[in-house]
């Protein structure tokens, strides 16, 4: 191999390496442009926090964004039905959790001004007077506007919450944290509520 041949081979190698790198960068930039999403991690069970997270989710969906809400731990209360069907194979502690955890937003407490449950009743009355949706109505709007609902499979397992206890939300699935991180990675905004 002559010196000139060696130089041209190494040049071709370098060009090929650069091309591969540019290709990878292009895919990444295109990915960023398409990453118009918001992911909301809802761990709190206070009524006003869940309410605010749903307002934000529906607004972002109205802005044409791809919105993912991940409900875990106390946040799962908001998705519970007022009356669940028969549940099976719960441990004693899981049953206790079931008794004490609010079944749906109507049973959820406020962080402030709760007044033993009177606060949320007044809040709902005030919202209704101003034609503003409460949490249950916002859940419906979120479904209509295409918000994706996810529940933490780990919470469901540990707390013993079964699918029959959750509202019939069509686009709801059980996912794990790796999936949530993956979804969050697909958007520019991740919120922890």
């Amino acid at each position: 191999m002559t010196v000139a041949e060696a130089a041209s081979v190494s040049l071709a190698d370098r060009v090929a390496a650069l091309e591969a790198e540019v290709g990878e960068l292009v895919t990444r930039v295109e990915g960023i442009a398409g990453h118009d999403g918001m992911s909301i991690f809802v761990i709190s069970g206070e009524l006003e926090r869940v309410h605010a997270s749903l307002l934000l989710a529906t607004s972002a969906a109205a802005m044409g964004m791809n919105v993912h809400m991940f409900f875990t731990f106390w946040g799962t209360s908001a998705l519970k039905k007022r009356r669940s069907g028969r549940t099976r194979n719960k441990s004693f502690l899981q049953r206790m959790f079931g008794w004490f955890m609010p079944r749906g937003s109507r049973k959820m407490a406020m962080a402030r001004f709760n007044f033993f449950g009177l606060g949320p009743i007044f809040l709902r009355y005030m919202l209704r007077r101003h034609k503003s949706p409460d949490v249950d109505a916002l859940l419906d709007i979120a479904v209509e506007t295409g918000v994706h609902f996810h529940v933490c499979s780990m919470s469901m397992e540990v707390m013993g919450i079964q699918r029959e206890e959750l509202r019939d939300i069509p686009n709801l699935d059980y996912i794990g944290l790796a999936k949530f991180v993956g979804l969050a990675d697909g958007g520019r905004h991740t919120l922890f509520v």
Partner: protein
Amino acid sequence: VEVKMIQLDCRGLICPLPIVRLAQRLADVAIGGQICILASDPAFRADLDAWLDKTKNVLRSIKSVDDVVEAVVEKRR
């Protein structure tokens, strides 16, 4: 060609409902179709601007009478 315009009355609704309703209604409209929205929420004008900016839809006309804004929005995509 006569363009059929959808009327959307959001008077009395507060944030974020006017924008949410607008987005929901617009989903039923073909590209090039228009919606005439009435809103009385004081934040509506600012929210509408941000929404138009983000969704790339176009404002055809806007006027306000007393506290009510009347905006005509054209769907672009």
